[in-house]
């Protein structure tokens, strides 16, 4: 599929999303749909670093919360409009990404992952002690009056749909370019990649920055979505687990893997939240993840490839 055609498909998907938003169905579907779309962005963003470059990031909540809290800060200080929140949230998280990119100089494998986990804890502690954005008690956010169309949740659903399409296009572009091939080489063997002329540090910084940017973008509309932001929900463990589980279940080597994983797991956990209990959904994610790691370590994509006989 050429990039031009992918763009067309992206536009069609976005248009479908808007059409869906126009339908007058139960508002809960938009509310739940938003979460699934948000996870498409998160899983896709995580996969740029974790799947393409092989650096497993356990600190997804840190990046997501950077997006969310940048938005909270800008809403409180200047009532900035949503597009500004999204771009600013993305940029702040991108800076954080660039920072962890330099960690890869010294830390690889498990050690890198532990450092990203520590980063999330440190940032959460910082936010808890920052009263201006709500501290540990949290902060209520009032949605702007009169969204461009529908009610505000329907509007946010559409916006997140657009962000999901953009994220997937970005990931797909990276995967098929020289950058993606270089990242695959350094994932396979960093020393050999460097010796074959791949500027590994530059590519890693690129991956951590883009991945961080998109994770921040996913978090920026969060305050308007929940209308009450507090550290435990913005830094939720769910993000760390899902960001990793969704690409693993879908397949990490291709852009479609995280999308498949996010749609399947996202839908399953929304269903579980409604029908069983909200505590059940992480449990389900855990069980499914263990199942896949044991039975199909290359995810659904790997399964499909195997069934087709390579």
């Amino acid at each position, binding site marked *: 599929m050429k990039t031009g055609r992918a763009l067309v498909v992206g536009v069609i998907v976005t248009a479908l999303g808007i059409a869906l938003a126009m339908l007058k169905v139960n508002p809960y579907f938009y509310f739940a749909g938003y979460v699934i779309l948000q996870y498409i962005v998160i899983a896709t963003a995580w996969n740029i670093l974790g799947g393409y470059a092989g650096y497993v990031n356990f600190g997804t909540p840190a990046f997501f919360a950077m997006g969310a809290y940048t938005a909270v800060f800008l809403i409180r200080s200047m009532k900035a409009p949503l597009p500004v929140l999204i771009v600013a949230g993305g940029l702040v998280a991108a800076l954080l990404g660039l920072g962890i990119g330099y960690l890869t100089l010294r830390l690889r494998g498990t050690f890198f992952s532990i450092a990203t986990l520590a980063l999330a804890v440190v940032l959460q502690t910082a936010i808890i002690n920052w009263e201006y954005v709500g501290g540990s008690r949290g902060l209520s956010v009032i949605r702007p009056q009169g969204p461009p169309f529908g009610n505000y949740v329907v509007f946010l659903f559409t916006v997140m749909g657009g962000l999901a399409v953009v994220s997937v296009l970005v990931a797909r572009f990276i995967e098929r370019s*020289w950058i993606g*091939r*270089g990242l*695959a*080489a350094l*994932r*396979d*063997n960093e*020393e*050999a*990649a*460097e*010796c*074959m*002329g*791949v*500027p*590994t*540090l530059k590519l890693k910084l690129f991956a951590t920055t883009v991945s961080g940017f998109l994770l921040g973008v996913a978090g920026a509309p969060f305050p308007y979505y929940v209308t009450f932001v507090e550290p435990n929900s913005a830094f939720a463990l769910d993000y760390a687990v899902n960001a990793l589980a969704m690409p693993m279940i879908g397949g990490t*080597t291709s852009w479609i893997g995280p999308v498949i994983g996010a749609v399947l797991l996202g839908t399953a956990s929304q269903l579980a939240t409604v029908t069983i209990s909200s505590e059940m959904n992480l449990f389900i994610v855990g069980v499914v993840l263990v199942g896949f790691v044991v039975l199909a370590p290359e995810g659904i994509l790997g399964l499909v490839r195997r069934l087709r006989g390579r």
Partner: protein
Amino acid sequence: MAEPLLEVQGLVKRFGGFTALNKVSLSVKPGERFGLIGPNGSGKTTMINCISGALPVDGGSIRFEGREITNLPPHQRTRLGIVRSFQIPKPFTSMTVRENLGIPLEYAAAGRIRDEDAEAAEILRDIGLDAKAHLRPAGLTQIEMRKLELARAMAARPKLLISDEAMAGLSSAEVDDILAILFRLNTQGITIIMIEHIMRAVMRFSERIVVLDAGERIAEGTPEEVVRNPAVEKAYLGE
């Protein structure tokens, strides 16, 4: 005398309190077949890691084609033309043999290649891996893996190829096979540094040999001179 292609001067490398290389100098002429030998732990691989840039040095300088490269990162040295193969093959496991060559063709040889596919096909044919182009490295035999290592190094368009024990563990016929490939590369104008434990191979291949022992350079000369050197005999066999 021609300007040396590679000139290492007074190279020092320490690991904590241990001096792995103590002011080692060597120079390699363009087109030369150069052997680097020494007992286990003498610093051969450390030397290669310093020349290729994998390890920072603690003293001394490295010049390539007259240019100071002591502090360049490895990928830039590769682009200048210093390419190494690894003692234990390090293929890109998720890629096919052909795709493995794609990485150096696209990165190291960027701008110097007209047709990537033709170039890759030619290298694979030269080295005898053309029938395996669509296999993953996991499906290769030990000698094919060594050949892939060399093919990938070739795809980076080296001026200086450093072959780090490309023949360890191979049968006698396979050693001849790899030697023939290296001789052929040399006739194409590529300078080669061979690090090898298999004496038969390194003696036959090298025009000039430097011997390292415990981080010091103890001898230099033609293969005949080196084997007659009492210091070399002492390093290998003891008193």
